């Protein structure tokens, strides 16, 4: 299994896209801190990168990579290897490579220029989202044989998580404005890893604003250790469940 992971990582690194992605993140990470004298503003720019660009790149790159390695997978399947190991190695290889890219690209500048609780949580959320979107990409790719359709599904999923879901939430908020929705919001936000990550960062970045209004409820949940652990656990579930389901499909799939 380790051997396959090594091979996947070597393959990804040879493929220049991930190098370009790392360079792009690093360029942004360095420039936001060097252009702004105010590190809070720098972190704010990076927040948008972490919540929008990272999921997009991860989900599309992983989907395309899975399709492109179809022949390699077929070759491996013909060897005396368990399908489970093949699929998990593929997942670990892609995830490791992208995590490394994110850590060098965003993690290093943040640790250098703004090693604060906010910066730290930003990097953690970025790393979690990277792995989560690789997992979701695997699920999207394993379902269809058609590459164009698979990439389409991946893009739609990204759009759903970063935009449509929030639109839905806002719709619910205004339609049911007369009801106490705070606790429902807590539950709903667990259905979207991007939202969970964003709330974790908000709790550090905009704590003063969150302390007003409904903030008390969010703070009472997310701000406590139990809430933190619950949030991280839910995000872990977002990694494990897509991989688990994709694995089930892959095991029975007629390649």
């Amino acid at each position, binding site marked *: 299994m380790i051997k396959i992971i090594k091979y996947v990582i070597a393959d990804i690194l040879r493929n220049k896209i991930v190098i370009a992605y790392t360079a792009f993140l690093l360029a942004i990470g360095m420039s936001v801190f060097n252009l702004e004298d*105010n590190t*809070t*503003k720098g972190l*704010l720019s990076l*927040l*948008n990168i972490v*919540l*929008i660009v990272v999921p997009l790149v991860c989900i599309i790159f992983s989907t395309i990579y899975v399709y492109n390695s179809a022949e390699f997978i077929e070759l491996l399947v013909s060897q005396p290897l368990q399908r489970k190991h093949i699929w998990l190695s593929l997942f670990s290889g892609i995830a490791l490579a992208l995590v490394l890219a994110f850590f060098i690209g965003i993690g290093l500048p943040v640790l250098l220029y703004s090693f604060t609780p906010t910066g730290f949580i930003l990097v953690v959320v970025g790393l979690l989202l990277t792995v989560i979107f690789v997992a979701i990409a695997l699920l999207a790719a394993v379902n269809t044989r058609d590459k164009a359709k698979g990439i389409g599904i991946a893009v739609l999923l990204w759009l759903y998580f*970063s*935009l449509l879901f*929030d*639109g839905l*939430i*806002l719709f619910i*908020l*205004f339609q049911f*404005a007369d009801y106490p*929705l*705070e606790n429902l*919001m807590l539950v709903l*936000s667990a259905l979207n890893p*991007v*939202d969970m990550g*964003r*709330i974790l*960062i*908000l709790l550090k*970045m*905009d*704590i*003063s*604003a*969150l*302390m*007003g*209004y*409904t*903030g*008390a409820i*969010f703070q009472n949940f997310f701000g406590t250790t139990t809430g933190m652990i619950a949030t991280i656990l839910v995000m872990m579930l977002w990694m494990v469940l897509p991989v688990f389901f994709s694995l089930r499909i892959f095991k029975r799939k007629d390649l």
Partner: protein
Amino acid sequence: MKPVFLCIGFLLSVYCTPISAVTLHVEKGHSIYSIQQAVNMAKNGDTILVAPGNYKEKNITINKPIVLLGNNYPVIDGEHTYQLISVRADGVIIKGFKLIHSGTSSLIDIAGIKVYDVKNITIENNILEDTFFGIYLQGATHCTIKNNRLTAYAKTDQQSANGIHCWKCDSLSIIGNTVTGHRDGIYFEFVTNSLIWKNRSIKNSRYGLHFMFSHNDAYIANIFQNNSAGVSVMFTHGVSMLNNVFEDNWGDGCYGIFLKEITDSHISGNTFLRNTTAIFFEGATRILVEKNTFIKNGWAVKIQANSIQNTIKNNNFLANSFDIATNGSLVENTFNKNYWDKYEGYDLNKDGVGDVPYHPVSMFSMIVAENPTAMILFRSFMATLFDKTEKILPSLTPENLVDKLPLMKPLRL
């Protein structure tokens, strides 16, 4: 010769009277062992020097102008039942005592030191611990309350009262005191022409400073920190609020400064750090807000539509979640020459003033004002898109709430 002697005698007696003021020593185990005993024996202008020790006195009443000095903080203990010192004469000076455990009551206002309708009182360098009201002045004029340290430990609002409580007073100087754990740190009602300078009001269970019907006062260089409702200035005109620090006042209904029905006042040189709302205007008129710094607040300024003719200029707005929020489309206030760190315009003629006007109210802040729970979507992709579209095509945000001369660089304050 007799008239001459008489004259000399008279002159001597007049001359000697002040010298005849004596110092009475109070110490446990000596002839004068209680402070009340010494007060009863003292004549006008005498000094009572109290040696260290624990004095259980059941409300010392001072009814003549004397000086009460504590040597190395003698403790006066109210045994959770009594008031500690009542001042009922002009010109009393109280210095260097440690006053502890006053009684608590919901019927009468029991205090550490209570001053009744007199003038020229000085209360200096005392430590008050676990008192109900700390220093209570009613109808007092020309008094100085200086460098006292007040701490209370009450758990609920019913059991706690105000630190420095002033009612119907005039010309007070409240200087360099530290108040912690009381209900309101400093309470002013019907107090005029007074100065509050260099005090620290920290972790009080209601307001750091509570201010009502108190005209022509100034509060300068104070620190208000971690009070559960911040500072409130209401129904007043002519207040100067200069160079204060308002820090970490967190919660709904908690403000750095809450301005209600206040007119003709001046807010300048203050620092607002990490408050949920730094300044809240409600029915405020003709207030000049200048040279203040707003950092990392939830809302830097919330201005209700019923506030008119206020001027907000030359302030720095840095890293606030929202800069300005309002509740209507009518804006009768001026915002000019401020530095906004969210400003994205340019300055072609390099005069330091941005060429594009800045609208400090974001679309999302209007959404949150209408539906507070929407705060959960703050900084999401969709919220950012809303703000951008609103910048290009304003529809919901008030169009005339605008800074026409936004500064390109933060002011040095």
